[in-house]
């Protein structure tokens, strides 16, 4: 395929993204008010906006509600095992460096069971785009505490409140060596789409954290209806591009920083492999 097919007119009303979704599987499994659908839709809009042929993309997900994304996109995609989306994606990228590889998964998948894969792929500057839907808990399995759950928040496994501190994901990504790091919420969906578009075109490891409501499991236990969470995103966030990721911890009382934290260039894993290993094998 060199050109993406144009949508042909039909009597049925057709959504502008229908050519990129498996419409036979819609409505999807995500609960009413769940933010994952908006992140997913934003990702598809960003893919479309790059004008890169669809067959030069692939999406990889792990396990979780967010990770169902790979099953709804009408492109080659991989729904892998829990925590292992990044190693699968790295394998694909090493074998087919021309593909744009997008990892679409949840906070638990990417930063609890899959945390080590994340830091090492960032360290090696693997040229992939990682989109993390951060809903502050393990949505799929009933709302257990995650590595991203704010201190004192209630979950099924922390009924008295979370005694631990959460990860600051932009700081973790920056410290691990990512080339592009941004955070948005689903309310800031235009900025989010632009960021995903930038991240896809960026050479190197790109990471975007997206805050999204999980009204059923996280919201219900913390007295937050989905519209309350959206109001927090509206009133308690501060957009500050180039901010210090060290100040990006999620504290809605103080205000949560959104924007692009990192946008730098350094050799990717593939570049380094080329100059280091391919050269040796010629000697």
């Amino acid at each position, binding site marked *: 395929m060199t050109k993406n097919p144009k949508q042909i007119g039909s009597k049925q*009303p057709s*959504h*502008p*993204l*229908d050519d990129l*979704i498996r419409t036979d599987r*819609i*409505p*999807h499994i*995500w*609960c*009413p*008010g*769940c*933010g*994952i*659908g*908006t992140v*997913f*839709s*934003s990702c598809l*809009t960003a893919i479309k906006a790059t004008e890169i042929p669809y067959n030069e993309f692939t999406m990889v997900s792990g396990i979780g509600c967010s990770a169902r994304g790979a099953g709804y996109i009408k492109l080659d995609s991989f729904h892998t095992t829990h925590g292992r989306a990044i190693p699968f994606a790295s394998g694909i990228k090493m074998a087919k460096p021309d593909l744009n590889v997008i990892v679409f998964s949840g906070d638990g998948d990417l930063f609890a069971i899959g945390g080590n894969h994340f830091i090492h792929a960032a360290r090696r500057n693997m040229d992939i785009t990682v989109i993390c839907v951060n809903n502050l808990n393990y949505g799929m399995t009933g709302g257990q505490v995650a590595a991203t759950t704010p201190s004192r928040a209630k979950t099924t496994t922390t009924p008295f409140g979370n005694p631990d501190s959460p990860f600051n994901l932009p700081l973790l990504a920056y410290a691990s060596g990512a080339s592009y790091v941004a955070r948005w919420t*689903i*309310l800031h*969906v*235009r900025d989010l*789409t632009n960021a995903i578009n930038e991240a896809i075109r960026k050479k190197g490891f790109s990471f975007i954290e997206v805050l999204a409501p999980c009204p059923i499991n996280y919201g219900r236990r913390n007295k937050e209806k*989905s*519209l309350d969470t*959206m109001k927090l995103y509206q009133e308690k966030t501060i957009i500050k591009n180039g901010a210090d990721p060290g100040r990006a911890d999620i504290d809605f009382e103080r205000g949560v920083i959104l924007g692009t934290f990192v946008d730098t260039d350094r050799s990717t894993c593939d570049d380094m492999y080329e100059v280091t290993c391919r050269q040796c094998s010629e000697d």
Partner: protein
Amino acid sequence: MAFWRQPLDTQEIQITKGVVNIIEDRCKGCGYCIEFCPMHILAFSDHFNKKGYHPPQTTKPDECVNCHYCEIICPEFAIYSTEAPL
């Protein structure tokens, strides 16, 4: 005094008009489009869709500015705007 800040080219700026399209059976009634439409022209309808949710309807269809916000915030691919024919 009230209008001294009015831009000089107000008369010339064209506001695009839009048509809202709703695929009712995909809607799960989250209300995001209704809450965040900048023109406040969407509201829950009284009828149910196939899954038992109340899909949105336009209260003032002529006032849609085709900004697409309802389209991009909707988690369900259930609503989108198109340019109104002139």
